[in-house]
């Protein structure tokens, strides 16, 4: 059965984002990057605990491009190290809004976990 496509006019219909998609969004939040740079950034931001492979990365990117969250850019920010096989990606406006909504959702969840002292011995 085909999965229902999220509605671009309804940001909440994209939520919750898969963990891989959120990692990619965070990596692209600062700047446009190519695939390998995204992988490195994800690994650095997670202090090495998340290592995304190329299959997962490009599979997620493909889905995000199809959903309008990410787009390929024609600009080549790093011409000296450039390779024609490299493509650069950035968040779209929709991607920015969905990323903000997911951040708010995760923040609320973390706040609730904090309030209930999750992992610290039970509720206050």
């Amino acid at each position, binding site marked *: 059965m085909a999965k229902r496509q999220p509605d671009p006019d309804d940001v909440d219909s994209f939520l919750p984002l898969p963990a891989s998609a959120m990692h990619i969004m965070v990596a692209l939040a600062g700047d446009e990057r190519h*695939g*390998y740079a995204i992988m*490195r950034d994800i690994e650095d931001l997670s202090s090495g605990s998340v290592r995304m492979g*190329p*299959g997962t990365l*490009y*599979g997620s*990117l*493909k889905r995000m491009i199809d959903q309008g969250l990410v787009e390929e850019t024609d600009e080549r920010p790093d011409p000296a190290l450039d390779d024609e*096989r490299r493509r650069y990606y950035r968040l779209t406006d929709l991607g920015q809004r969905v990323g903000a909504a997911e951040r708010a959702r995760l923040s609320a969840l973390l706040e609730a976990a904090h309030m209930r002292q999750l992992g610290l011995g039970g509720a206050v």
Partner: protein
Amino acid sequence: MRAALLAYPKEFRTDFGAEYARTVDDIVTHGGRRDLGSALRIAVEALTVGPRMRWENLMSSARIMLSAVVGFVALAALAAGSTATGIFAASVIVLLLLQLAGRDRPIAPIEDVHPRSRWLRLVNPEATTTKESPVKHLRWLALPVLGLGLVFLFFGLTWTALPQLGVGVALVAVAASVWRVTAGVWPVVPEA
């Protein structure tokens, strides 16, 4: 390590194959991971993510699902081995292909609907269906209809009985039509 690409679907290889290869090169050269661990990780990922992508592609395509039905009928016809079953199986295939290839959506202004499907517009006479319309749930009616059609086809082919075959073909065609016209992109017609 690039051989791992073969585990992924053709569409993925076409869109991202060169970039995937470039990234693997980067992992080896810049990442300093020219080791068995990296090769294993990429191979394991390919063997898990690749088949999952293939499965998702398969399941996201209603055409593939209906092709499976067509294949079932064709195999049944071959097994029965008579001219009549061949003709009816071919009829089913043609009907389904017509439904799949057609662009018409009966839940739309009548002038945009192909005559063969206009009767289905009865499900929404106002032609202002939105994405939340209960009409979309009608598509599940297609499943029992399809099941019944397959039963009729099975016995029709087994007994070489034309009435059962005719009913089976009709039910399968109706199921395909119902599924197609009620599971399209919503809204078919912009909201007033």
